[in-house]
């Protein structure tokens, strides 16, 4: 045992380094939708919006200024500034003004005509016959001479033959007049930035890239911000989320582990005052963490945001085994092998029970929680082995050297009658409160993926509020395994939307089926367009004669050029897409194809966004809705089902197990009283507003149930062994429970600072619940035991 002569700092540093290296080796998944039930159409919708309509390298920059014109200038100026960093920025896509739209939109208009219904195209071509074209020109000139300075006049100047009307015809399905890139008053605007020079699938690389972009934005803001009255700049979108979520997860895990270790050390110091033994215990905990993280990375791959909390919980639980070994060795002075033989089975059984409770989270509908449960269960197994085989010999060696210190009592339980009165009083109060106010409600607006104080999430929410949600629209995503399948699913979505509108479930639906590439229509239109190409010279000459300048003929020319280019691809494999960047970028806002799947983005405006009836009426396997409004309700329904499905059978099983373990109805009643009492206290804390419940932390109930039963079993058996001597039971098992309960509560409680709101709320509820269980088991249960057993005698 020369090893224990090592300086405590060395061994803790080595194990700490191992843990840190393991942490660096872990890859966190910044995909927040992975933590939620994938069968909910709302979750699927959000995942699909993210998967199909955003790219890992696509950053969204939002700018707010005091006035519309300044916001417009600010967007142009910042976009220009960022474009200069070609090592970071591949492309910037900002809103085109009307003139730019007309100048750059030729290829998109050409594609829309190629993809349009045949009769629409033939009507337009017919309308540009010799007499028709002259009439159209006359109308355009009349508009130009009207003196009105509206958009129609500008368009008439650039598009006298009305080619752009196709966008209006097809876009009329799109209904909404809202501008997707600015708020109604124009003071809030956004633009897209396509990044380069980083591996955007790796959040650490994305974070480095984002910090460089942030530097550039800060530099620009310092230079131009005041002049352009910029009040806020936000960076959001996939790379910002990934960078922030990844960094937050690393921070959460590090902070919660450090806080747990410090507080547990303090607790150990108060109870045992043995610094070297403490150092080794810390080293064993960090070794447990390092092994678990490495195994977790191999078994589970990327860890989700919820799994960031497992380390602290594991620390709080694994330390218990070390403490049990340390105290047993202190009391008996047995050598390590004997210590393992006597305490080993109880540690392994306790570990197995706790692991089973955590594994039961797999029955939850929340994959994030299930993953966390699996990691903790794995860690408990690792922790039990590390403590039994690595820490036990160390604990024995330290105790052999130390002088035993007398154990002080914990302080008495209340008198029997008082404790009975407390039990009855609290239960009665809880019953009354429940009868009066009903069972606690789940938070309806809860979003488990909400990350606290995340600048990118704040910017995202602001963007949704000011631009996308201002008209109450919710994204609708139609998905297909092929273009034909998508076309079929889109038709189904349109039918369902019509029916939902008739039933008053939605006000409006925007489903742009006309923007879906239609290879058959393209092939049918290719002939008439090829014939019409010959008319270009005639139309250009007409424009020239009518007094149109080069700018006035530019759009018409660009449409003919794009047609020439596209026609050569029409007979090829697959549909023809717009031939220029602007056209492709615009189409990708609505239709995209990735990984062999095709998706169309639409929108619906529900009459009651929180009511799920409209979601159920529209959603199918191929149609999903990214509805945040109804997500909270959907999750609550799901978790409520889980609770009945998982918790009730679990409760029945545990009651049977307790009956077998105790073989005494009185002890069974005491154990159930303890649970009921803890539940009543938690209920009252909830009613007092100190605790709140949501679909995430409700899954902590089975964990609390498990620890409550665990504590009561330990205390009842100790009281039996000590023939009802409360003081002896409290001095022995009471102290162990005090440490174990406190350390577990610290482990969970340290998650209160976690950036994921769901995880933080789980930490708070479990931390408080475990403390309540512990207090009940140590101080109240012994009095109830005496009371019930005295009644018997």
């Amino acid at each position: 045992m020369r090893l224990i002569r090592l300086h405590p700092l060395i061994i803790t540093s080595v194990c700490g380094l191992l843990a840190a290296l393991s942490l660096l080796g872990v890859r966190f998944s910044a995909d927040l939708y992975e933590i939620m039930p994938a069968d909910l159409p709302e979750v699927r919708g959000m995942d699909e919006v993210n998967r199909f309509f955003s790219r890992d390298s696509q950053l969204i920059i939002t700018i707010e200024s005091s006035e519309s014109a300044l916001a417009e200038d600010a967007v142009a100026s910042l976009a220009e500034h960022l474009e200069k960093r070609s090592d970071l920025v591949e492309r910037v896509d900002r809103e085109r003004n009307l003139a730019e739209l007309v100048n750059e939109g030729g290829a998109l208009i050409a594609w829309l005509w190629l993809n349009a219904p045949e009769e629409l195209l033939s009507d337009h071509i017919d309308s540009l016959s010799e007499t028709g074209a002259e009439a159209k020109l006359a109308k355009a000139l009349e508009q130009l001479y009207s003196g009105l300075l509206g958009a129609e006049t500008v368009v008439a100047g650039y598009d006298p033959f009305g080619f752009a009307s196709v966008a209006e015809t097809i876009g009329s399905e799109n209904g909404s007049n809202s501008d997707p890139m600015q708020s109604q008053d124009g003071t809030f605007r956004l633009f897209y930035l396509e990044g380069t020079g980083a591996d955007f699938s790796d959040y650490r690389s994305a974070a480095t890239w984002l910090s460089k972009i942030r530097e550039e934005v800060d530099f620009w803001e310092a230079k131009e911000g005041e002049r352009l009255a910029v009040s806020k700049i936000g960076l959001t979108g996939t790379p910002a989320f990934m960078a922030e979520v990844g960094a937050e997860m690393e921070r959460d895990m590090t902070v919660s582990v450090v806080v747990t270790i410090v507080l547990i050390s303090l607790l150990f110091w108060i109870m045992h005052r043995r610094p070297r033994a403490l150092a080794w215990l810390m080293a064993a905990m960090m070794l447990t963490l390092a092994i678990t993280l490495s195994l977790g990375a191999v078994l589970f791959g990327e860890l989700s945001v919820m799994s960031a909390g497992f380390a602290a919980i594991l620390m709080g639980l694994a330390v218990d085994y070390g403490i049990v070994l340390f105290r047993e060795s202190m009391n008996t002075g047995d050598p390590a092998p004997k210590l393992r033989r006597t305490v080993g089975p109880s540690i392994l059984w306790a570990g197995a029970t706790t692991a089973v409770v955590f594994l039961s989270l797999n029955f939850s509908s929340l994959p994030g929680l299930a993953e966390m449960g699996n990691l903790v269960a794995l860690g408990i197994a690792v922790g039990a082995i590390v403590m039994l085989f690595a820490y036990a010999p160390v604990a024995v060696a330290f105790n052999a050297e130390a002088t035993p210190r007398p154990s002080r009592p914990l302080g008495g339980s209340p008198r029997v009658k008082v404790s009975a009165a407390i039990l009855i009083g609290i239960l009665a109060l809880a019953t009354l409160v429940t009868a009066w106010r009903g069972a606690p409600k789940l938070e309806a607006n809860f979003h488990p993926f909400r990350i606290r104080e995340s600048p990118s999430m704040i910017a995202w929410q602001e963007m949704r509020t000011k631009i996308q949600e201002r008209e109450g629209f919710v994204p609708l995503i139609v998905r297909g395994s092929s273009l034909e399948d998508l076309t079929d699913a889109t038709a189904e979505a349109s039918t369902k939307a019509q029916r939902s509108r008739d039933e008053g479930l939605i006000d409006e639906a925007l489903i742009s089926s006309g923007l879906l590439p239609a290879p058959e229509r393209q092939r049918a239109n290719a002939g008439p367009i090829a014939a019409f190409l010959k008319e270009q010279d005639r139309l250009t000459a007409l424009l020239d004669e009518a007094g149109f300048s080069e700018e006035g003929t530019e759009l018409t020319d660009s449409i003919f050029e794009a047609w020439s280019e596209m026609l050569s691809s029409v007979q090829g494999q697959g549909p023809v897409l717009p031939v220029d960047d602007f056209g492709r970028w615009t189409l990708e806002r609505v239709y995209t194809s990735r990984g062999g799947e095709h998706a169309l983005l639409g929108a619906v405006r529900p009459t009651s966004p929180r009511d799920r009836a409209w979601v159920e009426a529209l959603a199918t396997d191929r149609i999903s809705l990214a509805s945040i409004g109804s997500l909270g309700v959907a999750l609550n329904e799901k978790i409520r089902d889980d609770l009945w499905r998982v918790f009730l059978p679990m409760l029945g099983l545990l009651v049977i197990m307790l009956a077998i373990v105790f073989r005494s109805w009185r002890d069974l009643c005491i154990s159930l009283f303890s649970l009921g009492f803890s539940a009543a206290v938690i209920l009252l804390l909830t009613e007092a507003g100190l605790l709140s419940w949501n679909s995430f932390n409700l899954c902590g109930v089975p964990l609390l149930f498990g620890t409550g039963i665990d504590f009561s079993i330990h205390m009842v058996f100790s009281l039996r062994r000590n023939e009802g001597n409360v003081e002896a039971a409290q001095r022995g098992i009471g102290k162990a429970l005090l440490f174990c309960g406190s350390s577990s509560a610290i482990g969970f409680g340290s998650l209160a600072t976690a950036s994921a709101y769901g995880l933080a709320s789980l930490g708070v509820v479990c931390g408080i619940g475990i403390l309540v269980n512990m207090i009940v088991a140590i101080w109240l249960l012994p009095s109830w035991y005496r009371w019930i057993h005295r009644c018997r005698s």
Partner: protein
Amino acid sequence: MSAIRLFLPPLLFIATLAPIGAQDGNEIISKWLATNSGTSNVKVNFSQTRTMRTLKVPIRQSGTLTLDYRSGKFRWELGRPTQTIVVKDGGGVLIVRPSVKKYERRSGGMPAMSALARGFPRTLSEFNSRYRVLSVQKVGSRHRIVTRPRSGSGVDEFTFVVEANGSRLTGIEIDLSDGSSVKTSFTSVKRNVSLPSSVFSPSISGYEATKF
């Protein structure tokens, strides 16, 4: 030719473009706005030159603008014979084209007409709430108050041309973001004239409703 003779004309021209400080600029604007005090209505005949990027030759037309400050109504009329009439119509505008006997009621208003719909500003605070002054320059016998409408709406610059002596508004120049421009010069301005109500309610009897 001596160097001084070569450079004198441009130097003289530059001297006439002397920029004016913010304090003086405000004074010039205030003086101009003060000329509107006591004015209940105004009838302006103007000539307009629209230089459009898409047309080879600028369009020159004349017209009349009638503003009634008390009722907040306006009538804008362009062309001889009249081609277009725009009047305030509740919260929107009524556009009438006598030449083709068609009209359109537009509820949302028209961005370019919104300045007219609200009339010219009458106080400095009202002016500043609607326009951001970019510069005030003296060009010959006129002051050019170059502004940018705070609402944006496709207008890059909105310039008020004011007499240096008398501070009367003599014209407006609008530079649109597509590079086109509209110059309006006031040929005559009459204040507090008698306005029959029919001025703001042009007859559309027999006209066809359309969407221009």
